[in-house]
C-alpha cells in the first residue's frame, strides 16, 4: 500500500515512531498529485513548497523529541472558501480570482499550530452554491470512481482529493449537504458538525446561520482526529459554542455499544425519489445493525418536506447579504468598463459572479424585499423552528437517526447543470440537519452496480459528535471498506 492511500490515524503513528518521515509522506502525496491531478482536477492552488517546508520542520521537531499533535506532518487540503494567509482564496469564483487574505481562518490557524501540512486549496462550486463543482469558475473536478461523473459539491474538490489520495484529509464546508453529498458520491466519510461546534471565522460566508466547516476523511478515525483538532470555542466567532472535549481512541470501537441502541428511521427520507439501489444499501446497513442488537423503528419528521424550501429561502436570503460585499471596491475582480459607481457595481457583479450565484443572490434579494419578507423569510424561519423541535421530539425516542445521504449516486457531468430545481433535490436528505443545526455524518455503504459509491447518513442531537462518531465507527467496522477507485 502506498502512503497516500493510508489513513491519517495510521500515518500519524508511523511518523511519531520514525517508521516514516513526514517528508516521505508529503512527497508521496505530491507525487500522487502529479500523476492524477490532471485527471481529477481537485485543486485550484497547490502549496507544495510550504508543504515540504512544514514536513521538514515536523521531522526536525521529531528528531528533537518534541511532543507533537496527531496531525503533525499529515497532508491536509483546504476547501477554497477557507481563508489562508498569503495563499489565494478564490471561493471558486472569478470575483475572487486574485484575492489573497491577510489572515488565516481559525481552523487553518489551529491546523498550522498542530503542524499539519497544508497541501493546497481545493476546488468547489462557486461560493459553495452547487452540488457538482460545475459552477466553479476554474474547473470541474472529476469523480475518482468515474471521470465522467461529478464528485458532488460544493466540497467536491475536498472529497475527490481524499478519495484519490491527493490529500490524506481535507476540510470542507456544509450549508445544505456540501460535505456529506460529495463524501457520499466519492466513497469517503464526511462530517457536518453541530452548528457552532467549529469556528466559522475565515470561512467565506454563504449562509451564516447554516454554514459549518467539517472534515472529509477516508475513515471515521481520521474524521474524528481532524474534528478534534479544530473544534471548540473561538473568541472571533460569536456563534461558536463552548463545548467540552472528548478523547478519541484509535483502536477498534467496541461494537457492544450497538446493543439496545435505538435507531430512528424517518419515513420521509426513504421516499420514492430515493434510488432503489441507494435505499437497499441503506436498509442493508440497518439490517447489520439489527443483527448486532440495535433496535430500529420507523419515525416521522413530517415537516421534512418543507426543509428544502426553508433551506433555499434562508440560505439565499443570507447569501444575498453576505455576497453584497463583493463589489469591486476593496478586493477581487473589478469590471473594466464603467463611468459611474452604480455601473461599476452592476458590471463587476454581472461579470464576476456565475449564473448560479447571481440567481441565488436575486432570489435572496426577492425574499427579503419589502412586501415579501413575511411570505418567505419569516415563514421559512418559523419552519426552521418547527423542524428543529421535530428533531428534538424524535430524539426523545431514539439515539440516532439513519437515512440515505443523497437520493442517488453521482450523476454525469453536464446533465443537471441547467436544471436548478433538480440539482437542488440533491440536498433533500441533508439540508434538514443544517436547518436544525444538528450534527450528521455520511459514511460509504458500498458501490452501485455502475461502480459508484453510495452513502448513508447518521444524525444525532446537538453537540453529540462523540456519540455520532462512535456509532459511525461501529458501522464502518461492520460494513467494511469499499474498493478504492482505479484512476
Amino acid at each position, binding site marked *: 500500500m502506498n502512503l497516500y492511500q493510508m489513513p491519517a490515524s495510521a500515518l500519524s503513528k508511523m511518523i511519531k515512531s520514525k517508521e516514516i518521515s513526514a517528508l516521505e509522506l508529503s512527497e508521496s502525496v505530491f507525487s500522487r498529485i502529479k500523476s492524477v491531478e490532471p485527471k481529477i482536477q481537485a485543486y485550484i492552488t497547490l502549496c507544495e513548497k510550504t508543504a515540504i517546508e512544514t514536513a521538514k520542520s515536523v521531522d526536525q521537531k521529531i528528531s528533537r523529541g518534541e511532543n507533537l499533535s496527531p496531525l503533525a506532518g499529515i497532508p491536509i487540503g483546504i476547501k477554497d*472558501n*477557507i*481563508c489562508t494567509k498569503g495563499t489565494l*482564496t478564490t*471561493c471558486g469564483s472569478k470575483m*475572487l480570482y486574485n*484575492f489573497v*487574505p*491577510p*489572515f488565516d*481562518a481559525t481552523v487553518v490557524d489551529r491546523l498550522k499550530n498542530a503542524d499539519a501540512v497544508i497541501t493546497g486549496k481545493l476546488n468547489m462550486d462557486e461560493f459553495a452554491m452547487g452540488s457538482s463543482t460545475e459552477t466553479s469558475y476554474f474547473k470541474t473536478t472529476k469523480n475518482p470512481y468515474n471521470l465522467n461523473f461529478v464528485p458532488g459539491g460544493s466540497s467536491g474538490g475536498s472529497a475527490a482529493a481524499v478519495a484519490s489520495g491527493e490529500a490524506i484529509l481535507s476540510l470542507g464546508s456544509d450549508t445544505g449537504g456540501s460535505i456529506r453529498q460529495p463524501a457520499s458520491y466519492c466513497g469517503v466519510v464526511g462530517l457536518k458538525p453541530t452548528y457552532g461546534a467549529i469556528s*466559522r*471565522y*475565515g*470561512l*467565506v*460566508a454563504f*449562509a*451564516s*446561520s447554516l454554514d459549518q466547516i467539517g472534515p472529509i476523511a477516508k475513515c471515521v478515525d481520521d474524521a474524528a482526529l481532524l474534528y478534534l483538532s479544530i473544534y471548540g470555542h473561538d*473568541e*472571533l*466567532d*460569536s*456563534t461558536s459554542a463552548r463545548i467540552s472535549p472528548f478523547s478519541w481512541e484509535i483502536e477498534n470501537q467496541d461494537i457492544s455499544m450497538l446493543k439496545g441502541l435505538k435507531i430512528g428511521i424517518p419515513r420521509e427520507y426513504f421516499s420514492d425519489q430515493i434510488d432503489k439501489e441507494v435505499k437497499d444499501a441503506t436498509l442493508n446497513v440497518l439490517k447489520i445493525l439489527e443483527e448486532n442488537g440495535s433496535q430500529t423503528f420507523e419515525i416521522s419528521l413530517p415537516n421534512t418536506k418543507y426543509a428544502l424550501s426553508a433551506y433555499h429561502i434562508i440560505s439565499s*436570503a*443570507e447569501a*444575498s*447579504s453576505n455576497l*453584497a*460585499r*463583493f*463589489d469591486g*471596491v*476593496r*478586493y477581487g475582480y473589478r469590471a473594466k468598463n464603467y463611468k459611474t*459607481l452604480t455601473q461599476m*457595481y452592476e458590471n463587476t457583479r454581472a461579470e464576476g459572479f456565475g449564473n448560479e450565484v447571481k440567481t441565488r443572490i436575486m432570489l435572496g*434579494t426577492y425574499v*427579503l*424585499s*419589502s412586501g415579501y*419578507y413575511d411570505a418567505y*423569510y419569516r415563514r421559512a424561519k418559523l419552519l426552521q423552528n418547527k423542524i428543529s423541535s421535530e428533531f428534538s421530539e424524535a430524539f426523545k425516542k431514539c439515539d440516532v437517526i439513519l437515512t440515505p445521504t443523497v437520493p442517488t449516486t453521482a450523476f454525469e457531468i453536464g446533465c443537471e447543470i441547467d436544471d436548478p430545481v433538480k440539482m437542488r433535490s440533491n440536498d433533500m436528505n441533508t439540508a434538514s440537519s443544517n436547518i436544525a443545526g444538528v450534527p450528521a455524518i455520511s459514511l460509504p455503504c458500498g458501490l452501485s452496480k455502475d461502480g459508484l459509491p453510495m452513502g448513508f447518513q447518521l444524525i444525532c442531537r446537538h453537540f453529540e459528535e462523540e456519540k455520532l462518531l462512535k456509532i459511525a465507527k461501529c458501522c464502518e467496522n461492520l460494513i467494511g471498506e469499499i474498493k478504492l477507485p482505479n484512476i
Partner: protein
Amino acid sequence: MSSKYELVVGLEIHAELSTNSKIYCSCRNKFGLEANSNCCPICTGMPGTLPTLNQKVVEYAVKMGLATNCKINKISKQDRKNYFYPDLPKAYQISQADIPICENGYLDVLLKDGKIKRIGIERIHIEEDAGKLLKMQNFDEALVDFNRCGVPLIEIVSKPDMRSLEEVKAYLETVKSYLIYLNISDAKMQEGSMRCDVNVSVRPVGQKELGTRCEMKNVNTFSGAVKAIEYEYRRQIEALEEGESICQETRKWDEKLSQTVSMRTKENSKDYRYFPEPDLKNISISQEEIEKISSQIPQMPNHKAIRYINELGLRQVEAQLIAENFEKARLFEKTLEINKNINIKMLSNWILGTVSEYVNKSHKNYSEIITPENLSKIIIYIQSGKISNSSGKKVFDQITLDNSRSVDEIILDLGLEQISNTDELEAVVKKVLDSNKKIVDEYKKGKTNVLGYLVGQCIKETKGKGNPSIIRDIVTGTI
C-alpha cells in the same frame, strides 16, 4: 412663525460612543488618524470575517436609556440593514430593527420661560458607523477611508413631540449634555461625533393627525438644524397654502445654499431588506447589570438646573450654566456642602466668573483647578471681610499655580489679610483727615463725592489692607 400652522419635529440623533475599541472588532476607536491606518480585516469587511460585539457599547446604550427613563429590553437583537455604498464595506450596516436595547422613555427640557417640556424617546439602539468618502474637486474619482468603519454609535430617536425651534434647540442641547454627563460621547457636532436627522411636518393648529413628514439628512451643526427646520417649515406651509400636498421624502440640508433639496427618488425608494444578523446571537442584559449601571448615573444637568432654581434660588441662566458641566456642578455643590452659610450668589458668580474663565483659558478641568475646600474658604473670607474680593482673586491665582498651598498660607505670605480692627483704623482715619482738611471742608459743604477719595487715601495708608466698608463707616462717622 405662522399662527395658522403648527410645527411638528422629531429628531434622530446619532452619537459616537467614546469606547476604547470599535463596536465589532478590537481596533482603536480613535478620531483623526492617517487614512486607512486604523482598520483591520473585520471592519473593512474582508471575506470570512465575523463581528464580535463590544460589551461597553451595550453598557453605554443602557446608561443613556436609563438616564432618559427608557424601558431596557433584557433581550435585544441586531439586524442587517442592506445597501450599497463605498464607505460601507460589508454592504450592510449592523443595526437594530424591531428589538432595540432601549424603548419608550422621555427627557424633560427646560425652556427659556422656565417651563419644562417633556419630549418622548421612541427608542435608543446601537449600530456601527460607516467610513468616509472623500471627494475632491478636479478629480473624477473619490477616495475611501475606512478608519471610521465600526465606530460605535447610538441612535436616539425622539417622538415627534417638538413644536418650536426653541424646543428643538433645548432638546438637542439637553441630549448633548446627557451624553457628556454620562461620559459616553464627546457629542461634538462639528467633528461629527453627534449628528442628526430631522423629521419635520406641519399641520393646521388644532388638527389632531400629524401631517406628512419630510426627513432631512446631513444636518451637522446646531444652527444648521435650526435653519433647516425653519426653511422646511416655511416650504411646507407654502406648499399647503398653494393647495399642494407634501410628499413623504428624504431631503438633504445644503448648508451653503441654506435650503433643503429633495434627494433623488431612488434614495427615497430604498429597500433596506432588514433581517436578523445571523453572525451574532441575542444581547442579554440582566437585572443586576441594569441596577449596577443605574447606580452609576448622576443627577442629569436639566434636573440639577431645576433644583438649583427651585431650592437655591439661582436664576435660570446661572443654574443652567453651572449644571451644564458635570465637574462645574460638582464644584458648586461640594463647595456649598462644606459651609451652608456661604453666599450662594457669590459662589455662583465665582464659579461662572473667575473659575470658568481660568478653565476656558487653561483647558483644564474644574476638578483639577481648585478644591471645594479652598474655594469655600476664599468666599467665606471675602464674606466675613477677612480679605477683599480682589485679594480673593490673588489667592485663587496662587492656587492655580500650586494647588498644594493652603489659602491661609497664601494670605499670610502675600499679607492679604484686611485690617478690620476699628481702633487701628480709627487712628489711620484721623491721620488722613488731619492732613486733608481742605477736602473734609468740601465734604461738609455737601460735596459728598469726595468721600471715595478720602476712603481711598485711608486704604492707601494701610497699604491696601484696610477693610473698605469699615473705613467708610469710620470716615462718615468722624466727619
